[in-house]
């Protein structure tokens, strides 16, 4: 088991390194060069050279690469080209916002998905299954930013019960204000996530309920509820955990657009602004951050797996 986890961690680190390297070379491979693209065609040769020196682009490639790696390990992400602010400082303000949205999204999502998935599977073909399945289809079909706009319209514009612009930091404004501002964005990203996880829960549980070992449990005289929770659930959760983990991507993607809807300066907003301003240092820092979060999520899924599936716990991955 330790060996398995160690292997996964190494693999994760490898992917992060790979992403960092690709981002490094990607930036330098931009057609026409990043500095020229940034400053525009009419910039003087002198200005271009000054900027290149400022960014360290005038040094040999291998020196740049080593420096880039050292910077990453020491979390020195450089400065924003537009504001001159330290990128790590910008991140420190943006990341909690995005994570708050994502947190509410995942909590809301799982809170809806798991119970509905279970109800839907155990009452297959009944009215409640039908309603849940249709609702999941609708949730799957609405982009997070559209849900956000609808929520803003209903709760903000028409009913006026919740604010629809801006964020309130937890430490400064307290949990109530934080929650009031983060609830609608959180639900917006949580609904599509709930739909995907619910569908997986339903189909996975249905498959498990049909398994021969469930018949064995019934033949042993195990009651219905114990069959469901003790015998079926863990087996059914194995694929659900994969989907729930990987689909955190859906929450992050949703967050990027939803931050725009609710005027929140999270990492999504940071990324979009950086791309539009051709602010390459910020762009590469955000992309690297998101990729690292994803790699970390995948790693978590792998580790949760070892607790759910005894076949992996004992080292053979032959499933």
């Amino acid at each position, binding site marked *: 088991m330790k060996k398995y986890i160690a292997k996964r961690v190494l693999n994760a680190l490898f992917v992060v390194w790979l992403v960092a390297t690709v981002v490094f070379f990607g930036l330098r491979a931009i*057609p026409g060069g990043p500095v020229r693209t940034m400053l525009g065609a009419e910039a003087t040769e002198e200005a271009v050279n000054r900027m290149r020196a400022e960014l360290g682009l005038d040094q040999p490639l291998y020196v740049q690469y080593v420096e880039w790696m050292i910077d990453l390990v020491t979390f020195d992400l450089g400065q924003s080209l537009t504001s001159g602010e330290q990128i790590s400082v910008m991140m420190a303000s943006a990341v909690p916002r995005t994570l708050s949205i994502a947190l509410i999204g995942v909590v809301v999502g799982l809170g809806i998905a798991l119970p509905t998935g279970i109800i839907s599977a155990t009452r297959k073909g009944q009215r409640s299954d039908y309603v849940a399945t249709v609702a999941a289809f609708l949730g799957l079909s*609405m982009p997070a930013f559209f849900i956000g706009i609808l929520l803003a319209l209903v709760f903000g514009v028409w009913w006026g019960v919740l604010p629809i612009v801006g964020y309130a930091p937890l430490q400064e404004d307290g949990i109530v204000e934080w929650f009031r501002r983060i609830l609608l964005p959180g639900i917006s990203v949580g609904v599509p996530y709930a739909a995907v996880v619910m569908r997986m829960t339903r189909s996975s549980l249905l498959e498990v309920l049909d398994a021969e070992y469930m018949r064995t449990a019934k033949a042993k005289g195990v009651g219905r509820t114990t069959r469901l929770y003790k015998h079926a659930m863990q087996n059914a959760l194995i694929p659900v955990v994969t989907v729930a983990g990987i689909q955190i991507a859906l929450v992050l*993607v949703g967050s990027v*657009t939803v931050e725009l809807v609710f005027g929140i300066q999270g990492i999504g907003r940071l990324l979009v602004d950086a791309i539009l301003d*051709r602010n390459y240092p910020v762009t590469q820092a955000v992309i690297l951050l998101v990729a690292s979060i994803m*790699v970390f999520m995948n790693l978590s899924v792998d580790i949760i797996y070892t607790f759910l599936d005894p076949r992996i716990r004992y080292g053979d991955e032959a499933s």
Partner: protein
Amino acid sequence: MSNDHTTSGRSDSDALDPDERERIARRYRDESPVESTENRGVYRRIRDQILSDKKAIFGATMVLLFVFTAMFAPMIAPYEQDETFGINQEPNSYSEGDYTGNGEIDRVWHVLGTDSFGHDLFTRIVFGARISLLVALTTVAFAFTVGTAIGLIAGYYGGLIDELLMRYVDFQWAFPSIILAAGLIAFLGGLGVTNVVIAIGVAFIDDFARLVRGEVLSIREEEYVLAARAIGTSDRRIMTKEILPNAVAPIIVQMTLMIPLAIIAEAALSFLGLGVKPTTPTWGLLLAEGRQYINQAWWISVFPGLAIMVVVLAFNMFGDSLRDAFDVKQSEVSEK
């Protein structure tokens, strides 16, 4: 009555011979109300299943309507896509002004209202279907071509090639599709349909690669493939003639389910301002504009949003029914 069981009955003069037996049995079967299912072909079964599935019929109808709208947008839309009238007009209202330039006051009806530039919203939405369809089809075609090639080669050859290609797929997995697409837009530098297609298309490659590789790995060891290899069929021929046709069902399902994802991705990029040029009529841009005017004109965002929802829902329903009909597992194809 004979007790010798190996021969008993055969000598019996009144026993029927096998042909007669079959004839009588068939006569009985023909009278029975249930038709024999043995001879029905697999395609007929799939067709029948889809036709009997309300979800599939609804999905297919809406998909056709969407394609039809996109194709004949100029004929369906009441006005030119760039024509402007009164701004932020409510649904079911009229603009008054000299829009034809003949010196007379025209009264122009807006079924869904107008946007903040004075474009007729219904017209913009109808033209927006074109971008959605175009981007969806080309991105999925692009991702399918590249992803299938990668998956085929990786799965078929295995070893180092597989290791390398799958590392790439792992790497791509680290990027949520929109983030990767946004990064690619930054790299490609500039807005426009081509860049959007490349960006989303690349972001979807891994789904096809992973799927096809999995199929290849399971099919590769099947006897007919081993047989083909044994008689010296070329690798390329085995891949395209033996393996690929047998992986068709999950690939078709995957494509059907990727189209709505591409539509959402395009809308998201446009919404972020990273998609097509701002003057192009697209649903994503209308939503972004609608967000700005949320206090004055709810319809600018709600109607395009509903358009996205209905089209995506239609594709999802159709794809889901296809998956049931083809008997492809939910875990086999990915939904991002």
